């Protein structure tokens, strides 16, 4: 059987940099294929070549359904049935579901809008994936999972034979991920070829039949999913082996810094009792929407609880604002680094100093350049942030270095309680390790850390104790040494 897509010797250079070097890729009809690799490994360049956005260097060969092309362009690629669903979904939030799905009807020269035809196209595509929205709803009013379905419907409505999904599960709850996986296998049975690009190695292995690994623009290999595990996969992606041991629990004697008694907030979480000791790393896991982020925001003074008590050093406190929480020694690293954690357009200096401006101000309330630069230099070297010029915008840094800037910004406030919400999202595996090191050092220095994550290995291997939250309630509280990945997974999903 001829493969749907067969590429060989694909290279791409940007200036002097090889983004891709002699990569081969074969995609079969009715296959679910995963593409993994760290940032900068060449995944997105490869996708852009398949979708025709970028042309490969001469010498490569691309064949689609038996037909050879020297290179593609977006129109030809779409014509061949190739559809890319980008991570941001590229939907039009202000248009209706029907218009988004049947957007092809809107393209081209001046023409009357055939609303009836668009509605038929949309309903047909929606029927294929079992979606049941009102086609006249605006996409902005749908939840993320719904928007994802709309994006898939749009690809189907454009007669897709190959759908490439870039990080499709990044903002879905586990339940929604399961639904997506079911949908993908259905599409596959209908003869569709699906390419998944994902950071989450567990999911990759769950969905894919074959996995292609890229590293530094070179293809490491294509593997059958049932022959490898996530540890091996991360080794292939990074070239290093990362083995973590479970932290022994040895902190029963340390003083309790933070204690929650019967904390509750309508619609968010209920009956939360929790103790956090100095030097302890407490892992908190649960599904998206389980109430974990809402709880964290309550501890940071941004989401006031309706009942219950928050005790700091045994004293009840009420946190009216996050400024007050910061004054009392609580710091919060939000999950969404790009829009909440950092101000991307502004300089590294501005970002690192933002939380301590009052302290840096000297006489007359003025901050001198010397004080500011001294502060930045100190934190850049202390956290090993790779910076060419601290006046550059923080968006010029890699994900790992950006997260270090966030950590520097909060560590500078001398927190006694540090809440980290998914601190390694979008950070390369090799850079993750550095972040874990920093967290461990902080705990060793006596900071109480609440580590929130939906990656179970992350909480298991990097906390002393693990809490599981479900439907707004804490359902499990266990030292890491007394549990395991499968046990936690069951507790989270049960």
């Amino acid at each position, binding site marked *: 059987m001829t493969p749907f897509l067969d590429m060989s010797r694909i290279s791409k250079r940007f200036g002097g940099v090889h983004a891709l070097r002699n990569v081969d890729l074969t995609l079969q009809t009715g296959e679910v294929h995963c593409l993994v690799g760290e940032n900068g490994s060449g995944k997105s360049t490869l996708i852009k070549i398949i979708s025709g956005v970028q042309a490969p260097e001469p010498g490569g060969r691309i064949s689609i359904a038996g037909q050879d092309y020297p290179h593609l362009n977006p129109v030809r690629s779409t014509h061949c049935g190739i559809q890319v669903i980008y991570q941001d979904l590229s939907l039009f939030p202000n248009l209706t579901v029907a218009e988004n799905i049947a957007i092809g009807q809107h393209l081209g020269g001046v023409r009357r809008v055939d609303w009836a035809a668009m509605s038929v196209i949309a309903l047909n595509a929606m029927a294929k994936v079992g979606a049941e929205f009102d086609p006249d709803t605006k996409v902005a009013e749908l939840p993320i999972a719904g928007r994802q379905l709309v994006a898939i419907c749009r690809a189907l409505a454009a007669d897709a034979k190959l759908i490439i999904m870039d990080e499709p599960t990044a903002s879905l709850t586990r339940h929604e991920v399961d639904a997506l996986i079911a949908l993908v296998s259905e599409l596959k049975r209908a003869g569709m070829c699906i390419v998944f690009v994902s950071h989450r190695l567990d999911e990759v292995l769950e969905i894919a039949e074959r996995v292609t690994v890229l590293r530094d623009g070179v293809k490491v290999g294509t593997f059958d999913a049932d022959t490898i595990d996530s540890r091996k996969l991360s080794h292939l992606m990074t070239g290093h082996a990362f083995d973590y041991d479970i932290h022994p629990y040895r902190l029963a004697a340390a003083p309790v810094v933070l204690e929650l008694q019967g904390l509750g907030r309508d619609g968010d979480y209920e009956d939360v009792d929790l103790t956090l000791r100095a030097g302890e790393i407490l892992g908190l896991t649960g599904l998206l929407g389980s109430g974990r982020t809402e709880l964290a925001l309550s501890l940071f003074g*941004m989401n006031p609880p309706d009942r219950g008590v928050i005790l700091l050093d045994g004293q009840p406190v009420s946190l009216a604002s996050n*400024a007050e*929480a910061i004054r009392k020694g609580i710091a919060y690293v939000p999950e969404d680094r790009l829009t*909440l954690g950092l101000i991307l*357009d502004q300089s590294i200096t501005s970002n690192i100093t933002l939380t301590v401006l009052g302290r840096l101000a000297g006489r007359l309330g003025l*901050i001198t350049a010397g004080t500011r630069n001294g502060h930045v230099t100190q934190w850049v070297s202390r956290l090993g942030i790779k910076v060419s010029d601290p006046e550059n915008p923080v968006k010029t840094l890699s994900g790992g270095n950006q997260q270090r800037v966030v950590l520097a910004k909060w560590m500078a406030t001398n927190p006694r309680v540090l809440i980290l919400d998914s601190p390694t999202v979008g950070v390369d595996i090799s850079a993750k390790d550095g972040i874990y090191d920093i967290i461990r050092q902080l705990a060793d220095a006596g900071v109480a850390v609440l580590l929130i994550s939906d990656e179970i290995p992350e909480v298991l291997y990097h906390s002393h104790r693990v809490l599981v939250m479900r439907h707004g309630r804490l359902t499990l509280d266990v030292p890491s040494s007394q549990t395991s990945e499968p046990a936690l997974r069951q507790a989270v999903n049960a």
Partner: protein
Amino acid sequence: MKEKSPLSLVTRIGRSLGGGTMGTLTLLLVSLWVVFALVIGERFFSVNTLQSMAFQMPELGILSLAMMLALLSGGLNLSIIATANLTGLTIAFVLTRTVPGSEGMAWVGWQLLAIAAGFGVAGLIGLVNGYVIAYLGVSPILATLGTMTLCKGIAIGLTRGNVISGFPDPIIFIGNGTIFGVPFALVVFALCAVPVAILLNATPFGAKVYMIGSNEKATRYSGVDTRAVLLRLYVYSSLLAGVAALVMMARFNSANAAYGESYLLVTILAAVLGGVDPFGGFGKVGGLILALVILQMISSAFNLLNLSQFLTLAIWGGILIAVAAVPHLRALLRR
């Protein structure tokens, strides 16, 4: 060495002058200066010319500072002119009620009281703007469009469009006097620009304003009370409009509900020309001053050449486009 384009010298000089907009503006200023010096000759350097430039710039300059503050936070203040006029009218109204004597403590005190009343009004308008924008979440363009119309309405309603004029000498001096040959209005401008520059570059407040301009939500998540910062910012913007009012009424020896309305969009032009990002987060007082000098120099030179002031407007517009296009053109050349 193949990227040795004609611009490379320009960019090198530009970078040594602080890079980016500052470099472009300095270069522009120098070249305009040379051109005008060659075309106009000696008259361009006469004390009269310099003094008239220095008399004209402060009004627009102070108003532009007021606009700049709002722009930096990602907002806009369309009410600055209306605020200035209402402030001017308030001061003028109090001044022309009764002036106790023509010298002495009571006389001076009354004038100070008049000015204080004006600033009270300006501050109040700033509070309304700030409250509606920061605490109610109304977009700045809408909120200040509302207060602009409202202030103008109050001013027109109370004065029926008439002028209030006839002020005591010290007030006139603010607009027309000189100290060692330097127009006092320019001193007032400096007394505004320097504190604003310090406020923006060397205080926690200023740092927060820039951060809010780029991403208000992330700034709030960093423990900054963004609403309080914005409220303060719009009060400052209003107070600066109040200072402009004082200079304006002093120069004309009168106040009116409709003075200086053509300045409104010119303040945006000046600020953006000076490198203020119209979407917020970036811009320095130094850049604004350079832009103001450039604009004023063109205006004065055209005046000396007996060219229409409307041609000046057109050239200002052209310069803005040219300067705004520089980053893109530079990127094209580099490629």
